[in-house]
């Protein structure tokens, strides 16, 4: 099968995406697919795809454009099949302001939060209400750009006076910021694969310096991973249930990753969902697949099968 693996792009996650993309190409090629990498940051995508006419696009783009529905809408227009979630659902899932709301409405447990829009600050004087954010979510809290990935622009705030600077930093990456209560506990990620979604073993994340930031994610050895996660069967089941609820609430498909924190009392909290989970050598989804007995090639093949079953 002719598979165009879309990776690269123009976002700050370009490098990460290229690393994911190259690994997917190698994995698919090992299964005798005619797989090749296509970087929308390097070539005009629509033109290239019309010329090449792949059977399907495997989406390994990270960040804006790749995960927010933009590329998906273009592929819909071109009539080319692609892996992963559809355009509208991507748009919701990628935007934390929208996704958190949708998750909470569906009864998914997600930490208390408030959203701060950049233009509301600039034009509506929303800065005067910043104190309310701390009242609502408490301290410490985590400030995240609404639309970004790989923990870029994410900051933890311990003292109220530091909130404004953290909001400014997050707004550097996105038009809005989410201020979220910081839940203390173990970080776990659930990989969900196929149609209907099957949960892979949970992966537990233990960053050596305590924070799972960009460096901890992409420096080999900076973080320890355990798969399956070192949690009780009940906690694992509860986490998987939250992950499946999230996927169903947001209409995600083929392959997704749900990031959670299990608090001291064993309750899992959903932090975010990823419609294009990283596939690098330090990424969580390939580890989860391995813990389930799947090779990277088998993982990619199953993603393709799921997409082609539509």
């Amino acid at each position, binding site marked *: 099968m002719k598979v165009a693996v879309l990776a690269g792009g123009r976002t*700050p996650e*370009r490098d990460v995406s290229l690393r994911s993309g190259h690994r997917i190409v190698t994995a698919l090629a090992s299964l005798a697919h005619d797989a090749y990498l296509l970087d929308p940051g390097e070539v005009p995508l629509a033109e290239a795809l019309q010329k090449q006419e792949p059977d399907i696009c495997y989406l390994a783009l990270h960040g804006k454009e790749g995960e927010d529905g933009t590329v998906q809408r273009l592929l819909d227009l071109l009539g080319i099949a692609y892996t992963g979630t559809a355009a509208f659902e991507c748009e919701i899932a990628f935007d934390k302001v929208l996704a958190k709301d949708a998750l909470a409405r569906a009864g998914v447990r997600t930490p208390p939060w408030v959203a701060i829009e950049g233009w509301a600050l600039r034009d509506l004087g929303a800065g005067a209400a910043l104190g309310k954010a701390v009242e609502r979510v408490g301290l410490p809290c985590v400030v995240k750009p609404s639309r970004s990935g790989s923990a870029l622009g994410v900051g933890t705030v311990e003292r109220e006076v530091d909130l*404004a600077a953290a909001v*400014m*930093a997050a707004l*550097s990456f996105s038009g809005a910021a989410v201020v979220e209560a910081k839940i203390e506990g173990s970080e776990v990620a659930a990989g969900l694969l196929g149609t209907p979604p099957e949960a892979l073993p949970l992966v537990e994340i233990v960053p050596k310096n305590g924070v799972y930031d960009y*460096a901890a994610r992409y420096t080999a050895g900076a973080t320890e991973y355990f798969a399956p996660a070192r949690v009780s069967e009940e906690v694992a089941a509860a986490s998987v249930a939250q992950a499946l609820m999230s996927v169903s609430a947001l209409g995600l498909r083929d392959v997704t990753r749900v990031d959670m924190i299990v608090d001291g009392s064993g309750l899992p909290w959903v932090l975010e969902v990823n419609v294009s989970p990283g596939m690098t050598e330090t990424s969580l989804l390939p580890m989860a697949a391995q*813990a389930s007995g799947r090779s990277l090639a088998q993982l990619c093949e199953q993603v393709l099968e799921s997409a082609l079953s539509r």
Partner: protein
Amino acid sequence: MAEFSVDRFVDLYAQRTSGMSASEVRALFAVASRPEVVSLAGGMPYVQALPDQDILDVVAQVLDEHGSMALQYGGGQGHPALRERLLMLMQAEGLQADPEDMVITTGAQQGLDLVAKIFVDPGDEVVVEAPAYVGALSAFSAYEPRYLQVDVDDDGMIVEHLEELLLRGARPKFVYTVPNFGNPAGVTMSMERRERLVALCREAGVPILEDNPYGMLRFEGEALPCLRSMDPDNVIYLGTVSKVFSPGVRVGWALAEQSVTQRLILAKEAADLCGSSFNMLVTERYFAGDRWRANLASLVDVYRSRRDTMLEALTEHFPQGSTWTHPSGGFYVWVTLPGYVDSQAMLAAAVERRVAYVPGTAFYPDGRGKDKMRLAFCYPPKDRIREGIARLGSLLSDEDQLYRSLHP
């Protein structure tokens, strides 16, 4: 239950590599190098200005006259003819030297590594300027020093602060400085400070590591003497052809007193046996004639006019509360922004607006520099410099508005 080891050697790596990690800034630079982005980040010499024919001539000459030598190993100290030739380059800056006191290195960058290698044990104190060249910090950090930072002002390193450190008992292995048009600050050490620094270090028995990549890129004013010429026994001098010829040939050199030179040669041989014979011979031939002088003069003209363009654009577009240095040579303008700006966080928004710079934090080992940025004027043409500064100016004014709205 399985622990997933994404790097099965993780427990085996040396402690000195612990600082080497992935970073957000690096991730952003992957985007910043794209053509639609005006990059004021990288300090790349404008090698396009070199006449192609001059280069073809010297390469042909090397292969024609010294083909087998150019393709062979050489001695660890570097090709004798090149060392002789580089004396002339140093003479142009008023520096007398003996080719026996020189070691050719792979760029001055290798000189930084080798000097740290022969002087620094873990925990040793090393004095650096604040801000300091980030590549020097990377090179030194592999030897796990403890940095003592001495601030710079418009006259270069504030030597009085170094004096205080020494009085308080600091015993650094060396004092590192880029006295001419430093990277990133763009400032030049005054004559008075040079004299004071040389005397102070001599008295304290602390060698000076003088790194002079930009000395010949002077746009105006009189050149000041190299520290090395003021105290040849106590100054280790690093030179390079990267900025006056080509960074691609990777030819630099260290000039030191004999005992240091001998250790540097051994360290150089241990590191990579010898430099590239081919590149050394090409470099020797390039500087053999007189054409390099005209080429350099026209290169300096290009840089001067780009500097002027950047300074004009900064005045036009940067908000109140920002200040910047006015370099009389080199590659860089160093900007101090209003205190609330976090230039590292802001880089993402800048790249989104298709302009890039280096956040100030890169140049301090202790995390300072959030309100600083380094802007390089050496590479982009003038219209791109104007466009880039305009984009940054508009971003800064939006940041200002955002800051005010967050602090009503």
